[in-house]
């Protein structure tokens, strides 16, 4: 609960991550579910796993860099 409050108070720090999440998760993942007759288009997303790794590193670092006591 405390973490959630801390995140919410500093939410602006995560806006760039949110924008990439929207583009990636909604734009690519959800849209690819609409492509019914192209088996493999979801598998294509595996190529983009390095982006997920860098995304997680970036968000973790942003979290750690939040001002103490915020």
């Amino acid at each position, binding site marked *: 609960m405390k973490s959630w409050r801390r995140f919410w108070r500093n939410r*602006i*720090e995560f*806006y*760039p*991550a*949110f*924008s*990439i999440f*929207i*583009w*990636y998760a909604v*734009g*690519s993942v959800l*849209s*690819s579910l*609409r*492509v*019914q*007759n*192209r088996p493999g*288009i979801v598998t*294509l*997303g595996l*190529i*983009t796993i*390095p*982006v997920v790794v*860098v*995304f997680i*590193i*970036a*968000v973790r*670092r*942003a979290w750690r860099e939040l001002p103490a006591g915020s």
Partner: protein
Amino acid sequence: MEHEMKFPPPAIPGYDNKFVLWVSVILIIVVLYSTYLHHFRPQILRVPSNTDVSTWTNPKFEETCVYDRMSDAERAKVRAEGVPGNTLGDILFLDISSILVALLCFFHARKHYGKWMAFCFLIGSFVFTGLQESMWILYGRFTGTSAMVGLGEQVYGTYWFTKGGLWFFETPVSMCLGWFYVAYGCVWMASKALPKSGLVKRAVLGGLLAMTVDLWMDPVATSPELMSWVWATGDIIRIFGIPQTNFLGWFLLIFVFAILWETLPLWEKRLGRAKATGYFFIVVIAADLAVLAFQYPWCRALRGILVAMGFQHGLQIPPGW
């Protein structure tokens, strides 16, 4: 970003407010006029019809990448019903959601870099990508050629976007804003992942991240079910049905723009804010033309390599896409 830019420039309220006002006014006029031309005078810029694909030229429907990816039933459906998912609701959703997400990134940029730098990123990236895309689109549409050089097949133009409410020349505003927040988000991720690296390394990582995200997004958005944009056939290498020039463009544009924007505070120190702003926009437009020009030798060199390796047709990776 912050680690390189140790001294985000202080605000100069008089200049910053005037800059924001005038640039916004000019941009709004261009967007309103482009939108009017696109929707109400489509014959002037030869906007392809979304309802009757048989009228398409440069390229014709049969000369597009999406045609190659379609089954006979899908081709018949598009011929009968036009481009799918082109409703007012779809267009409004696309425009409004991209404005909202772009605003979030703008708030983050304003907090960390100040109003002037944040606005330079927003407007600079908007104009950078909007002009680049529009030049490609109109060049292909009016000449029937492109930087792409065919190998075993003819080139009939470049590409175009089918969906958008508001337009900046021939690029939907949602795409320009999408480019802004993807560029900003990827440069932010790169700066967090490589905090101690120099500007060029971070710009390379930012460009690669954006290109990789696009590697999934593009084949989905150009699929027969969505057809959000349409590519002409003819590039020597197609990756998941998308010409390689697209991915090269994504990498180069974000790489170059990240470097230009992060150099802005240095220009301001040397030239003053007003001159640095003018210089930034002139360099942005010059870089746009340079990226465009670079595609010509690049495509010819790539074609030369494939010919030397004995290929008689363009490569499709994976085959059948």
